[in-house]
């Protein structure tokens, strides 16, 4: 048979045959490593996986017979065995000759069991690679020795790094096709190292291989005496497993299920995300912040003395404290924070693009909350790694966003804890999983988590209304068109289900400000009060619209300073005095010219035009409707 390694390398047939119990005892102690293979269609990825399965005897004779027949019928390797056919699963794919989804394969060596995520290298399938990488401890990045470091190599490396994979293997494949040439390998190594350090990969292992011929897979190859190792399998058997590294971190258990078989037992079930736990340990339940200690670790096989990261357990607590699904039981002296506003990286996975401001379900560990995403701060081009301005994220788009949740969630930065930092977004209508995300940090100072649950703040109120509060401050001469346009704007907002309130100058003077006249001091107080009322209304989550002449820059700036950045939107209705006076809708200019009105702006009192308004409306070239459209666009666009 072609391509069979000279010696069976993994499974000690002799031991199995002679002393099965000794073999089984040894096999019981194996650990589990998950890795992904990334490469393009032609890098020989499926061939490599087929080779690993074949060499580790995970392929039986009947499968082999089918494989040989298939190889002759549809294989791409002439009369030789096409290992790729072993792993290209779905019928449609076999005809196209490419893999289009994530497939999981299994093989075992003497030291480890392996789960391989076979992820496609085709450009539009960033989604699949991120999916496969999310559970991987290690990534094998395949390079065709004849082609060297390609754009897709950079893409795969960036994604593996993004998802937090600590162990990167650069497998330079098809060495048989370049005459096992050392200089080819070294040239590729050099160019990859330059790129890797650019994106923050400090450590990787490069191995020259031939998946097709079996070189440097299970053992060092005589064809490349210049390579001192390790062979691929040897390396895979040696690297540290991510979950094992999590044992050293503080204890966290996201509660999945409350176990209540009867009134005397109340257990909290979940998989330990990090750390270790034993009876007597002081713990804190988040987000409530209540403290108690571990009473028992309960299992079907009897209570445990201790449990570690990765184990699924049921805990009972010494005191009766409120604790339900979504809560996190954590080490009392090192609890994680809770917050409701975050910066995060998003990988968009749905055909429908992200919609800023729309509410999605966010699932993180066992917590599910409603979340809205703001427009991306930037999108990352996975090929060039450039940061690009973006209004949304399309399928396979990766960007950095700010998001807010309708209630605080217990979290950690993804870099510190994958379980408490990785999340998915779910479309509320279709229930599709539309994005994967990784939290960077919370946007506000951590608060005492004990108080947060009852703390309804302005963001939560605004989120409930599904909008960002704002103050649209119209300024301009009397008769410039402020009230007309402001009214049109509010009508449009109302039609769009936005919660708004129009504070009109004349109306306010009938009530709140009826005690004020038109002296300079009274005019300033008028604006101050209007500013304070507008601020309260934005705290309530409203989009507030004001239409006051507000002739003085300093008053307008005073109101601006009362509000959070970017919420004060100054709209200058720019109508020349001559035009306003020609319209004179209320006959006021006529009165002022006749001396019947004192301190009338533009006549005997100055108007200080805004120098840099957020929006300027020139009413000599625009109808009120066009002006309203423009303002709505700028506000919501």
């Amino acid at each position, binding site marked *: 048979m072609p391509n069979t390694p000279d010696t069976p390398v993994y*499974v000690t*047939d002799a031991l*199995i045959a002679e002393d*099965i*119990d000794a*073999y*089984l005892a040894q*096999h*019981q*102690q*194996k*650990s*589990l490593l998950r890795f992904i293979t990334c490469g393009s269609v032609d890098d020989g990825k499926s061939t490599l996986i087929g080779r690993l399965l074949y060499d580790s005897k995970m392929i*039986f*004779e*009947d*499968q082999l017979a*089918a494989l040989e027949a298939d190889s002759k019928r549809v294989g791409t390797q002439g009369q030789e065995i096409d290992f790729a056919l072993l792993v290209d*699963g*779905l*019928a449609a794919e076999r005809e196209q000759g490419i893999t289009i*989804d994530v*497939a*999981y*394969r*299994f093989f*075992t060596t003497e030291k*480890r*069991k392996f*789960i391989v995520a*076979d992820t496609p290298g085709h450009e539009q399938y960033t989604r699949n690679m*991120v*999916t496969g990488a999310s*559970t991987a401890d290690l990534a094998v990045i395949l390079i065709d020795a004849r082609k060297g470091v390609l754009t897709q190599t950079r893409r795969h490396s960036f994604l593996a790094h993004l998802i937090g994979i600590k162990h990167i293997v650069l497998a330079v494949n098809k060495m048989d096709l370049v005459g096992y040439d050392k200089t080819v390998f070294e040239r590729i190594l050099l160019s990859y190292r330059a790129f890797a350090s650019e994106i923050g990969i400090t450590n990787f292992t490069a191995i020259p291989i031939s998946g097709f011929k079996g070189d440097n897979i299970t053992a060092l190859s005589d064809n490349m005496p210049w390579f001192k190792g390790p062979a691929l399998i040897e390396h895979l058997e*040696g690297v*540290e*497993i991510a*979950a*094992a590294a999590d044992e050293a971190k503080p204890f966290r258990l996201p509660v*999945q*299920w409350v*176990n209540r*078989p009867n009134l005397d037992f109340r257990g909290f079930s*979940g*998989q330990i995300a990090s750390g270790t736990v034993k009876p007597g340990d002081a713990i804190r339940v988040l987000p409530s912040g209540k403290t108690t200690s571990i009473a028992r670790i309960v299992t*079907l096989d009897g209570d445990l003395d201790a449990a*570690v990261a*990765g*184990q*699924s357990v049921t805990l009972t607590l010494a005191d009766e404290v409120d604790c339900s*699904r979504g809560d996190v039981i954590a080490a009392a002296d090192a609890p994680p924070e809770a917050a409701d506003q975050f910066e995060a990286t998003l990988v968009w*996975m749905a055909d429908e693009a992200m919609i800023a401001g729309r509410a999605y379900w966010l699932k*993180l560990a*066992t917590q599910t909350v409603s979340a809205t995403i703001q427009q991306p701060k930037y999108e990352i081009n996975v090929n060039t790694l450039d940061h690009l301005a973006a209004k949304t994220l399309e399928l396979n788009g990766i960007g950095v966003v700010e998001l807010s949740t309708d209630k605080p969630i217990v979290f950690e930065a993804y870099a510190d804890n994958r*379980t408490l930092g*990785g999340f998915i977004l*779910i479309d509320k209508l279709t*229930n599709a*999983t539309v994005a*994967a995300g990784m939290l960077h940090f919370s946007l506000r100072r951590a608060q005492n988590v004990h108080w947060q649950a009852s703390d309804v703040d302005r963001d939560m109120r605004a989120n409930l209304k599904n909008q960002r509060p704002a103050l649209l401050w119209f300024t301009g001469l009397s008769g410039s068109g402020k009230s007309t346009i402001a009214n049109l704007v509010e009508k449009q907002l109302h039609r769009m289900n936005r919660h708004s309130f129009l504070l009109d100058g004349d109306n306010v003077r009938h009530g709140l400000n009826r005690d004020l006249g038109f002296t300079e001091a009274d005019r300033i107080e008028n604006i101050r009060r209007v500013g304070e009322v507008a601020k309260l209304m934005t705290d309530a989550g409203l989009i507030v619209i004001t239409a006051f002449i507000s002739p003085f820059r300093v008053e307008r700036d005073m109101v601006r300073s009362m509000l959070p950045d970017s919420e004060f939107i100054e709209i200058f209705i720019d109508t020349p005095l001559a035009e306003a006076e020609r319209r004179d809708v209320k006959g006021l200019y006529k009165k002022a010219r006749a001396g019947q009105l004192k301190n009338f702006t533009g006549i005997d009192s100055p108007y200080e035009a805004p120098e840099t308004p957020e929006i300027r409306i020139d009413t000599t070239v625009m109808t009120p409707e066009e002006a309203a459209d423009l303002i709505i666009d700028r506000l919501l666009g």
Partner: protein
Amino acid sequence: MTDTLTHLDRLEAESIHIMREVMADAVKPVMLYSVGKDSAVMLHLARKAFYPSPPPFPLLHVDTMWKFRAMYELRDRMAAESGMELIVYQNPEAKERGINPFDHGPLHTDMWKTEGLKQALDLHGFDVAFGGARRDEEKSRAKERIFSFRSGTHGWDPKKQRPELWNLYNARKAKGESIRVFPISNWTELDIWQYIAREIIPIVPLYFAAPRPTVERDGLLLMVDDDRFPLLPGETPALRSVRFRTLGCYPLTGAVESEAKTLSEVIQEMLLTTTSERQGRIIDKDGGDASMEKKKQEGYF
């Protein structure tokens, strides 16, 4: 370097996590129980996941009336031992028409198993069904999700499956849709056997070699489990030391000649053997190469 947890520990923890996660969103879950070794492991994991409560869902056996007698015995025993409700469903139409593997070929599997399963799920309104399928069994299953979404008519669309990241499963669904959940997706046949040995899980004795009455037919060794087995002219059941690597309807399940009487010997034989697990099953071969994928689109597990 040493790892605190072995591969079996990690597989067990993952499966338990999956089962508990289902309970968050499921309205009326059920565990499909076929009495085979994979079902035995799945049931054992469910008992561990929810202990000291009994698993909070019933067991559903979609019966064909043609299982091995020893399977029915173990089924009833395990249901009693686990404290779970056992629902046995037999497709009434198949029963009425007397559909059987001898006279009806592929129709037998289609009506009893595929149709029977759909009927049982619809009848009881189960929205989530645990199944014991493993990714290493068959090529199209390697790409199956752990949470597999089915349309209102139980169809499976490979293009519409949701990405599964980390250990986060999205179990939200619209009215009428259902989910098949495969908690032992990442287990291999060897893992199953190792775990049965480690946890001392009861399995049907047919997995161990014993002298059994068999006939050889179409290249398969079939066990004559009861007197419904129609012998062809010239066929006489002969006692052979055989065991089974998979269990299904006895007239459709081929035995292998074996002397393996203990778990260790079974594993030994498995490791040294040269044919794959599903090879003894007839149904995979109906319809050629992509037959399992086709069955799945029709609603078979």
